[in-house]
């Protein structure tokens, strides 16, 4: 009886074996390959890489398989692996303007140099379940476009910059050290670089909800989608001992630049910016991130603060899905010692209150 409330090594081992068995499911159904996840669940892979803050589609696909499709668990697996990886240095900053865009849209001009490129998007699909998918039929081949996929498309935001209608991007600071959220504890108020890192790693649902709240008036920023682009960039690294750039490979990214309400104050009125960046095709995340980035800059523009989306400490302390899930789920660990302490106090208080209602003198109790 006493031992029944305690777990043992064998119980844990058995639970892990059962989990592995349940994860696999019916052995009569073909095993899901990591390659299948990578090819056919690419958006999930992108999300796991983004929140796992590690660009490795194969690793992310494996994590998704191992996690039985649970996003947070998959992110956890990727992060736990990431912390053990040795760091060789920092890659060169990449230019998203040089991106080979597979998709690029702007909502602020009817047409832009390079054109509106829809690319693979759900945007105008009718959300009707497609039963031909269930039958496993191959889709018709894509339309052959005249556009050359290698071509880079010019950015939209400089069109506003020419007239100084939008705040300039922060100046480049070559050689400056960039703070790293994963290497040093965040102190509040956190600078923008740290906030962007936290938002990029942050849970998509949380960042989406906070971004949404700004549109509903809790820290309104009047956003316009200046540009959303998705495509590949080349990642390069400069080894100190070589002294020249070494290409590391291509990385697929989604970038969102929001144009927001103008700020006046001491200077001439200008639109302001919000920025979002995520691995793979992660449009919702990049857009939500850009909204929250801008709302977290409220104090910088002397705007009223007070909405959750304007509170850096609130957003940064709660956007991480691993921290959140860990603390919520840890409630299932045993807490009986503390519960016993509360039980004891409650029994005593109830006894006292019963005594008091009978008009008895309540002595000091321990």
């Amino acid at each position: 009886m006493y031992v029944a409330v305690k777990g043992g090594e064998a119980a844990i081992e058995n639970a892990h074996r059962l989990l592995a068995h349940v994860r696999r499911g019916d052995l009569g159904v073909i095993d899901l390959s990591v390659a299948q996840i990578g090819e056919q669940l690419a958006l999930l892979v992108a999300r796991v890489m983004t929140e796992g803050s590690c660009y490795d589609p194969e690793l992310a696909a494996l994590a998704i398989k191992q996690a039985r499709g649970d996003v947070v668990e998959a992110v956890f697996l990727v992060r736990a692996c990431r912390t053990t990886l040795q760091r060789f240095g920092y890659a060169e900053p990449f230019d998203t303007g040089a991106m080979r865009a597979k998709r690029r849209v702007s909502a602020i001009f009817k047409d832009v140099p390079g054109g509106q490129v829809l690319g693979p998007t759900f945007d105008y699909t009718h959300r009707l379940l497609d039963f031909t998918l269930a039958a496993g039929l191959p889709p018709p081949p894509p339309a052959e476009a005249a556009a050359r996929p290698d071509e880079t498309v010019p950015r939209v935001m400089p069109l506003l910059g020419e007239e100084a209608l939008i705040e300039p991007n922060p100046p480049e600071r070559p050689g400056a050290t960039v703070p790293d959220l994963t290497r040093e504890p965040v102190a509040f108020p956190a600078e923008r670089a740290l906030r962007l890192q936290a938002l990029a790693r942050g849970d998509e649902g949380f960042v989406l909800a906070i971004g949404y709240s700004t549109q509903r008036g809790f820290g309104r920023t009047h956003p316009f989608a200046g540009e959303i682009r998705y495509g590949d960039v080349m990642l390069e690294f400069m080894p100190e001992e070589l002294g020249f750039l070494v290409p590391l490979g291509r990385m697929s990214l989604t970038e969102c630049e929001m144009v927001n309400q103008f700020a006046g104050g001491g200077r001439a009125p200008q639109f302001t910016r919000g920025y979002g960046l995520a691995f793979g095709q992660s449009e919702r995340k990049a857009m939500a991130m850009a909204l929250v980035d801008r709302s977290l800059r409220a104090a910088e523009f002397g705007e009223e603060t007070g909405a959750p989306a304007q509170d850096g400490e609130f957003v940064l302390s709660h956007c991480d899905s691993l921290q959140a899930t860990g603390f919520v789920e840890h409630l299932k660990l045993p807490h009986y010692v503390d519960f016993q302490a509360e039980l004891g106090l409650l029994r005593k208080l109830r006894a006292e209150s019963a005594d008091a209602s009978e008009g008895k003198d309540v002595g000091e109790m321990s």
Partner: protein
Amino acid sequence: MTGAIGYNFAYLDEQTKRMIRRAILKAIAIPGYQVPFASREMPMPYGWGTGGVQVTAAVLGPRDVLKVIDQGADDTTNAVSIRAFFRNTAGIATTTRTSEATVIQTRHRIPEGRLHEGQILVFQVPIPEPLRFLEPRETETRRLHALAEYGLMQVKLYEDISRHGHIATTYAYPVAVEGRYVMDPSPTPKFDNPKMDNSPALQLFGAGRERRIYAVPPYTNVRSLDFEDHPFRAQEFAEPCALCGAIGVYLDEVVMDDRGRRMFVCSDTDHCETRRAAGHRGGAFGL
């Protein structure tokens, strides 16, 4: 926890260990102050003791003997899991005997027996900030600690007294360390608070999710906050342990059947087993 081949001694890489070790040294030099540290993602979830595990991993050496307890017991699932983690990644000896351990990682309890010099007690901490539930903002609580402005806490405790006639905090009961920093002792029952005072062992506290490390050196004054007219009092249990007959120890209430029969037994399983091995018997044996 299956094999951990390919990982460093005690799992963490050396750079991470150095970072944690530096934080531990500062924590010892400023007793009760919460040192921020760059907590890493561990292969167990936040809330499962990642802070304690990181502190233990940074401290452990091959000659250490590790004991891990949760709720006072060595055989609770998470204690078993953490012990196995270090056996696999550090290859060190483990024990359930408090007196034999050099490092004891704990969640929610301090062992009953007096610890000795040279022992290190590592606490797993969920919310290291004692003022957090009075003031949710880190920027504010940090300032309050800087100014040693703890009136908020006194007010909260006094409100309890006026509402309930008692201080209604039964665990994670705040303490003042060497008369300076107010500190969260982790969610141990306040029963354990007096054991923190002037302990011969070094007490280290790790909060992974909240990224804080703090410490109480050996032989350090640790005082539970209270009032002259409402002095601090630890819980007392009306009956002895049903298994070993111990009194003056913290007891778990075990529900025996669906008719509400209950039994009270030592929460510290090693303490209970050691006493029973020495021939002590409690009421469950019909004495």
